[in-house]
């Protein structure tokens, strides 16, 4: 039984040097000192083997060639290869184009849905919130296949409806911009509800009397939306945008299954490019260099977005 002085922080090095002079206390002290490390041990072991080491390893791979377990240093060759590969820039362009369209559309839709779901005295809010959230339940592979079938040229349901209305079916998956549109529609379907629920939780923090005061002053709902809801949600909005931007930059499953990156690489994304280099042509060096370029892009964008919020807060 240990009867030392109570400490503000539990556990840890309990005994000071004077007490640890006796042998019993010494053993106890060593035990107590090791307690936090014992708690950490499983995680830290996995962290070093499957995270820290791989991160450093792939940094090394960036600067060389790795073939049958032997490594030869090649300097910045991999980077200059990636940065002069038109396919990489195509993937970069595709990813960014889809991102700059998808993220604002999805954020706006989610914002509208969230503020509608926040209307007071609206019956069935709970169930509607649940239904709107449901698309994320379907796994990425299943919904990609389903949307692929919806947009099939010959007999997908979308073209069938268009033909029923007297139009001509569109070559959804055979034209670059239409294929991108299909991906944007599919991703927006899956993630809008999720973002709606994030924003709903942010809306709970906007005090109700702000709206009451505004409506006494004669501000309509649209006016209230732009004067109270949007500024009040700023932090949550930026958070949601960061998430969506990162998700779009790491897009893989949807183009892999829905469009196969086609037609003619029109929907090839950065991560698909990395996957092809790494696991189709087994060019580990080039894929690693590309993945670190992706790290820099994500870091720069996240930094930018955080900075935008910080600056605003200071005002």
């Amino acid at each position, binding site marked *: 039984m240990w*009867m030392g002085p109570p400490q503000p922080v539990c556990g*840890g090095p309990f005994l000071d040097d004077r007490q640890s002079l006796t042998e019993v206390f010494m053993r106890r002290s060593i035990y107590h000192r090791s307690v936090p490390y014992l708690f950490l041990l*499983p995680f830290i072991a996995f962290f070093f083997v499957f995270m820290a080491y*791989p991160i450093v390893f792939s940094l090394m791979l960036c600067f060389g060639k790795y073939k049958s377990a032997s490594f030869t240093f090649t300097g910045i060759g991999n980077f200059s290869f990636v940065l002069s590969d038109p396919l990489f820039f195509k993937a970069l362009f595709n990813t960014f184009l889809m991102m700059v369209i998808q993220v604002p559309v999805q954020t706006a839709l989610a914002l509208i849905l969230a503020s509608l779901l926040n209307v007071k005295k609206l019956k069935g809010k709970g169930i509607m919130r649940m239904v709107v959230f449901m698309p994320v339940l379907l796994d990425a592979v299943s919904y990609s296949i389903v949307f692929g079938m919806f947009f099939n040229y010959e007999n997908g349901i979308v073209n069938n409806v268009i033909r029923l209305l007297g139009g001509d079916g569109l070559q959804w998956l055979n034209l670059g911009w239409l294929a991108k549109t299909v991906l944007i529609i599919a991703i927006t379907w899956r993630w809008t509800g999720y973002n709606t629920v994030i924003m709903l939780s942010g809306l709970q923090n906007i005090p109700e009397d702000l709206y009451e005061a505004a409506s006494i002053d004669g501000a309509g709902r649209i006016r209230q939306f732009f004067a109270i809801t949007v500024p009040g949600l700023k932090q949550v909005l930026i958070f949601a945008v960061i998430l969506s931007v*990162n998700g779009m930059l790491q897009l893989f499953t949807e183009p892999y299954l829905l469009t196969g990156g086609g037609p003619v690489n029109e929907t090839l994304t950065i991560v698909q490019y990395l996957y092809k280099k790494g696991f189709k042509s087994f060019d580990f060096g080039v894929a690693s260099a590309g993945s670190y370029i992706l790290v820099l892009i994500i870091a720069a964008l996240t930094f930018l977005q955080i900075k935008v919020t910080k600056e605003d807060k200071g005002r």
Partner: protein
Amino acid sequence: MKTKRNGFAYGILLVSCAVALFPFLWSAFAATHTNTQIYQIQWALRPGTRLLSNLKDLTASFPLGRNMFSSLFIALVYTLGILLIDSMAGFAFAKYEFKGKGFLFALCLMAMFIPTQVTLIPLFIEMTAFHMIDTYWSVILPGFASIFGVFLMRQNFMAFPGELMESARIDGAGDFRIFARIVIPTMKPALASLGILSFVNQWGNFMWPLITLNTKEKYTMPLVLSLMVQPGYVTNYGSVMAGAMLALLPVLVFFLLFQKNFIDGMLCGAVKG
């Protein structure tokens, strides 16, 4: 005036709900269709008669029972492991002072900003060296290095009153006992959130299993579905949809049973894909 405005809100919300639900309903009905019916608009949202034969088709090309088992085994072992490992680590970071704490914490924080794509190739090389390629462990183990859950649990442990632990210690309880008997039982909501998030993420995990698994029997459900629609195969889409519905089932059941915890869990993650 007020009701008219609410009518407008209802209109938009109901349309959104319909859009959200349509692909679910459509694929559930599609699972009962023939390959011709599935593409005919008059059959959309109408039950067909082929559910059983579609399922049979599915089991003819894949050992579906094994695949469901693979998916469940990987997702469950991963989830239980994450709960244990991350709550222990989170506890250490929240409630102890020790040498190297600041360093380790900063290291974890930095690693959190590195996207998973960076580690894929080294992990693949490591797994090959460990002779773990094409095993369940190759899918499960790397996930244990994920930092998110540690931060989440740490956040929750910080709120746990230190006096409670102190008095238990005076009563002679050891640290591990305090952790297991006193602290963990109060963490059920956080554990539920982390557990649901981990399960759903691992259940839908696609890219990494695609890289490491290469035996039919070990494939998880997303892999099975993705292989069935590869170009060159004559695909019976009805049976693909039947498979998709099977893959949806556990997640849907979880969602309907624990709706609030489920949504909280998915939000606490806010990690896509």
